[in-house]
């Protein structure tokens, strides 16, 4: 039986359909989850997709982080369930304190949309184990508030614990501290990144099919009986 991967829709989510399609193309079963439910429908993993939930009111991801489904996601993450936050999903994970730091307005003040090269700096997480170490991948990036910030002690801790999972290569599109594009929690089951791997799953529409490997990683992690350290 294929892995069941939930994709949460919040009011203002945009990329839930693309995320569900990526899950399907990678060989898993996408399960639609609703922000207002206290029910993860027993999925094996969860994706928080991109978009502008609640119109980015208050702060990006702040209101969604307090939604009923997030109570369940936080509990599940604590039990080792793989959770991936993409763009607005990454912002939600930070606001929910599943990941440290915060995403702020791009240094340039411009909304940036480009095909972005990333380096896989940690290929031991639940969402990156199918990549080679230091592999370069190209996926779309599109955000206005992707500037990752945290205090120096937190940044040092992330670096020392190998929790910088994705780093921008060649161009830092938003002013993120230390070129950080994505990070993970201490146990590697919760991963967040600003770029959009779910838009890089078919030759016809994406710059690569590198995004499929994130889903393949989760499937492998689940088949391996849990999360890698």
């Amino acid at each position, binding site marked *: 039986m294929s892995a069941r991967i939930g994709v949460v829709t919040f009011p203002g989510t945009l990329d839930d359909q693309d995320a569900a399609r990526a899950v399907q193309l990678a060989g898993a079963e996408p399960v639609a989850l609703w922000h207002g439910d206290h029910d993860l429908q027993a999925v094996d993993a969860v994706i928080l997709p991109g978009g502008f939930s609640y119109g980015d009111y208050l702060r990006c991801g702040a209101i969604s982080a307090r939604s009923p489904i997030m109570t369940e996601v936080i509990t599940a993450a604590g039990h080792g369930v793989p959770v991936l936050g993409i763009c607005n999903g990454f912002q939600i994970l930070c606001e929910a304190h599943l990941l440290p730091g915060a995403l*702020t307005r791009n240094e340039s003040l411009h909304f940036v949309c480009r095909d972005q090269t990333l380096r896989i700096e940690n290929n031991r997480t639940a969402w990156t184990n199918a990549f080679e170490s230091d592999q370069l991948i190209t996926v779309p990036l599109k955000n206005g508030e992707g500037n990752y910030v945290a205090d120096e002690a937190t940044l040092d801790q992330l670096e020392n614990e190998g929790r910088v999972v994705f780093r921008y290569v060649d161009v830092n599109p938003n002013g993120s501290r230390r070129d950080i594009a994505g990070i993970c929690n201490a146990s590697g089951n919760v991963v967040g990144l600003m770029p959009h791997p779910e838009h890089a799953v078919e030759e016809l529409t994406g710059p690569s099919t590198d995004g499929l490997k994130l889903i393949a990683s989760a499937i492998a992690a689940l088949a391996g009986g849990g999360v890698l350290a």
Partner: protein
Amino acid sequence: MARVVVDVMLKPEILDPQGRAVQGALGRIGLTGVVDVRQGKQFVIDIDGEIDDDVLAQLHEIAANLLCNPVIENYEMSVDVTGGATPAGEHQGTFVGASSDAVAHANEGQQ
């Protein structure tokens, strides 16, 4: 009736690109000598009933963890228990009016 005003500002060490853009605009419309602009948010919360210590503690909890993100922002809270709208409204009106006049004056200088 009480009015609670929460001001949220980015911490000093966090870059504020919006404030920087406003600072640039001020220079372009002829206001010289501006050394820094920081942009923040203000929440005005009207509450029916008494603001006792429990409510105050609740308000601080909300201000610290929902209205502001403690990773990047600080907040200041002021409580007006004398009946709300008028004093805070007056303060706000005066402040906005003064700013608008200054900008209008600067615009006239440009023309």
